[in-house]
């Protein structure tokens, strides 16, 4: 598609302006990371100041880097499990006529309908009984409740557009079902899987209620550690900003690296041609 520079400048400018407005609070948070406490909310607002690193030391002292690692592990592993378990299901729901398909499909969504606040005590009581509180396994399981349904539903709408002809051709070649799934379906679905699993990872990354009640000293994620910065002596604003920005970084990097799978431009369609 040929594009003249004027159009490009227009759209780029529009997006950049929108981004600046959208991200203003985040930019402010980045400034707070290095802003001395006594002028944090000074009136009139101090836009220029000598940066300080005082907020970083507390965050490290408090072991926030350990919570970061827990969060990364928990987010990654629970998302991987969701992808492994959810992809065949999403594909099956999209492709096959089966008895009770609609009911089963709605059952999947039903697991996401009740407010988690109400379910956390039943979970807590069950987990306390079978010793899963404050364990990695326990939290991974709990995270699958909200992410598996999300993954299956969203990925299924990507599966809808898969060309059946390719599968048929492969079957005629004598490929097994497994081979068809692995070599034909998965590559075609890569785009959708990446996009959906990024969203799942973010849900897991930011989850609070389950992690707080079902986790503990051994398994503590970043969002659960954040409220310890809100003390009765006020919020440690600078530290909060540090944690907020640090918590962003891994997701930002992941999205940056993975987006080439999402942004495949129009080549995706070419496969079908």
């Amino acid at each position, binding site marked *: 598609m040929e594009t003249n520079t004027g159009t490009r400048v227009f759209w780029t400018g529009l997006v950049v302006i929108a981004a600046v407005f959208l*991200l203003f609070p985040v930019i402010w948070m980045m400034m707070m990371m290095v802003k001395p406490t006594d002028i944090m909310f000074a009136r009139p607002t101090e836009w220029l100041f000598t940066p300080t690193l005082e907020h970083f030391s507390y965050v490290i002292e408090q072991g926030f880097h350990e919570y970061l690692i827990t969060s990364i592990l928990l987010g990654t592993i629970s998302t991987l499990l969701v992808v492994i378990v959810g992809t065949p299901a999403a594909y099956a729901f999209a492709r096959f006529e089966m008895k009770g398909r609609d009911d089963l499909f709605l059952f999947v969504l039903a*697991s996401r309908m009740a407010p988690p606040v109400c379910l956390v005590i039943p979970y807590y009581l069950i987990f306390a009984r079978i010793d899963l509180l404050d364990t990695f396994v326990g939290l991974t399981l709990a995270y699958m409740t909200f992410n598996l349904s999300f993954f299956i539903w969203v990925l299924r709408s990507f599966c809808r557009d898969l060309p059946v002809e390719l599968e048929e051709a492969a079957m005629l070649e004598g490929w097994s079902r497994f081979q068809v799934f692995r070599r034909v379906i998965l590559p075609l679905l890569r785009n959708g899987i990446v996009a959906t699993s990024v969203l799942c990872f973010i849900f897991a990354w*930011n989850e609070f209620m389950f992690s707080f009640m079902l986790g503990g000293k051994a398994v503590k994620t970043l969002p659960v550690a954040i409220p310890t910065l809100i003390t009765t002596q006020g919020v440690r604003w600078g530290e909060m900003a540090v944690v907020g920005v640090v918590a962003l970084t891994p997701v930002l990097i992941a999205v940056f690296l993975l987006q080439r799978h999402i*942004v495949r431009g129009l080549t995706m369609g070419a496969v079908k041609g």
Partner: protein
Amino acid sequence: MSTVEAGKVSVKSAHRSEPVWYPYLLIAPAMLTLVVVSLVPFVFAVFISFHEMKFGRLGDFAGFENYVELLSDGRFWNAMGVAVLFVAIAVPLEFMLGLAGALILSRPIWGRSVLIPLLFIPTMMAPIIVGLLWKIMLAGSWGLLSYNVIEPLGLIDGSSVFASPDLALYALIFVDIWQWTPFMMLAYFAGLQALPVNPYRAAAVDGANPVQTFFRLTLPMMAPLLVVIGLLRLIDAFKVFDSVFILTGGGPGTSTEMPSVLAYKMTFEFWNIGEASALAVVVWLLFFVFCNVFYQIAKKKLNAF
């Protein structure tokens, strides 16, 4: 268009030889997982909802007592009303802004690989940080925007956004839109990128203008994703908790008391687990009916499933 229809028609023929059990095998792991991690706790909650359970001790069978108590409580209906208003404003706006953003991002743009992750930042942030960040922005008197914009211009007289019974809910809706529009945008953008190119070529040959292309091609082909993401967001928006809890605690009065905030209080403050479970079941039932109806309509009218 043709691809979509072709796919639909050929579903049966392509797999005529498939054994009946094959699709069930594919969904079995997911279904088993959901039964274990989701159904069991929910059934337990249903069980609790028919019992007295104050202070964590499972008491006598109580029949529908918890439900009667819940449904006759004005606060419950207030919470449902607040949530309906919240969802009715927030989700359509997020939907439209998200779709518009996705379409704009699909235009030729320099540095898109950098801009996409940046635009996605609000969704990446933990809701608890989002709540605190908007407190910093909009808190009465000491908030950055309150002090530099709202108060000098006299936009709100004698109050602040989160302290005003009339404005607090809209301020929370604004925060929700800020956080979740990028989510919609990224999902829709990924969907747009996955659309087949042939129909567009055909449309270009036919001389269709962009508006026609959007309504005749993009929208129908995007329908499944639009509907699914919209529905999931709707369910999530109804349950919003963290930002409300941090910014207003459900106040002033009960003007921002969403069902999740009420459920939180029933659970962790009043420790009336029986009634909290009844609330979970009622909300669940409402969504179940809603999603069923929605599913049937979307399936027939929009060919979305």
